[in-house]
């Protein structure tokens, strides 16, 4: 298994763990803010906010 590193979430600056097995265009999800993040580069990993559909949350 790969070493656990982390990069900052571009939305909330929370730590997002990334493995060196991540590939460009993969989506990871920020544990802190639930944002969907796209891997736009690897070595080192760079994440960008993926376009997201605004989900209705009731009420």
């Amino acid at each position, binding site marked *: 298994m790969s070493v656990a590193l982390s990069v900052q979430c571009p939305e*909330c600056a929370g730590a997002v763990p990334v493995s060196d097995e991540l590939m460009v265009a993969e989506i990871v999800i920020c544990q802190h*803010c639930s944002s969907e993040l796209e891997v736009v580069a690897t070595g080192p990993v760079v994440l960008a906010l993926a376009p997201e559909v605004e989900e209705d949350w009731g009420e």
Partner: protein
Amino acid sequence: MKVSVLGAAGYTGGELLRLVHTHPELDLVQAVSRRYAGRPVAEVHPNLHHLGLTFQPPQELSPVDTAFLALPSGASAEVEAGVGEVAGTIVDLSPDFRAGASSASGETYRTGLPELYGDDLPGAARISVPGCMATAAVLALAPLRRAGLVAGDAVVDARTGSSGSGAEPGPASHHAERGQAFRVYRPTGHRHETEIAAHTGVRARMTVTAVPAVRGVQVICHVTPPEPVTRRDVLRVLQHAYRDRPFVRVVARSRGVHRLPDPQFLSGTNFTDVGCAVDEDGRRIVVVAALDNLVKGAAGGGVQSLNVARGLPEQTGLEFPGLHPA
């Protein structure tokens, strides 16, 4: 470490008994109560039935390393000198020693809020825990203030459960009056405004509503930034401030039913959850913070501070994560 709890029949006192029991380094010597001396603790705190504890009268305090004072305002001040003679360390939950007051023994009380005053606490022998709504508002506002995001006064809309006013019955806490109440009982002039100002430099204009809950405090802080900001700017400030703080969680999700801090998930825990949103024009920041008034806002804050004061891991005895569903 031997500890005693004064005011053990009250609500924060009961939580201290629970936390002390869970804590691997703390041993309870006395659960002190005037009214219930000699009676089983479980008569008052049914959750502790299996512990087989009995309340002790305040007349016979045994020597301990640390005494927790879970007494009403005024009562702490009254007993402090006497307690200081049998206890090396005092952790006070009341307002009596909050603004850097002095102990009868001459020592200055340190503020029991490790997130802001963690460096002050190691070695402390006198600790005063801030008020519950103040703690929530301070943890919400302090990072923004430090980051220069607060211009002018803040509006702080605070909601509190009924345990916040303790175990003493009265007309305002009578179930038939209080059960469904949204009682704006302190629309202006709450005394926690002063505490918030002292710890953050922000003038908080508070409005406090008693809401249909037993535990829990939630504050909504409305802040005007000097210039328009984005949600991302504010989140970054919060994440940065609390990156290494085990008991402050930044909660601001963009999906799911539960996105911002909600006290319902914090009952029994020592967490403060903090999150935010920003108006479309960037001219108002809304910071939401929530905690359990009896734990992080009182008993847990006291144990956490004692952990730091004694060089123990900060989370010791405070690991309960809370429940979902609540």
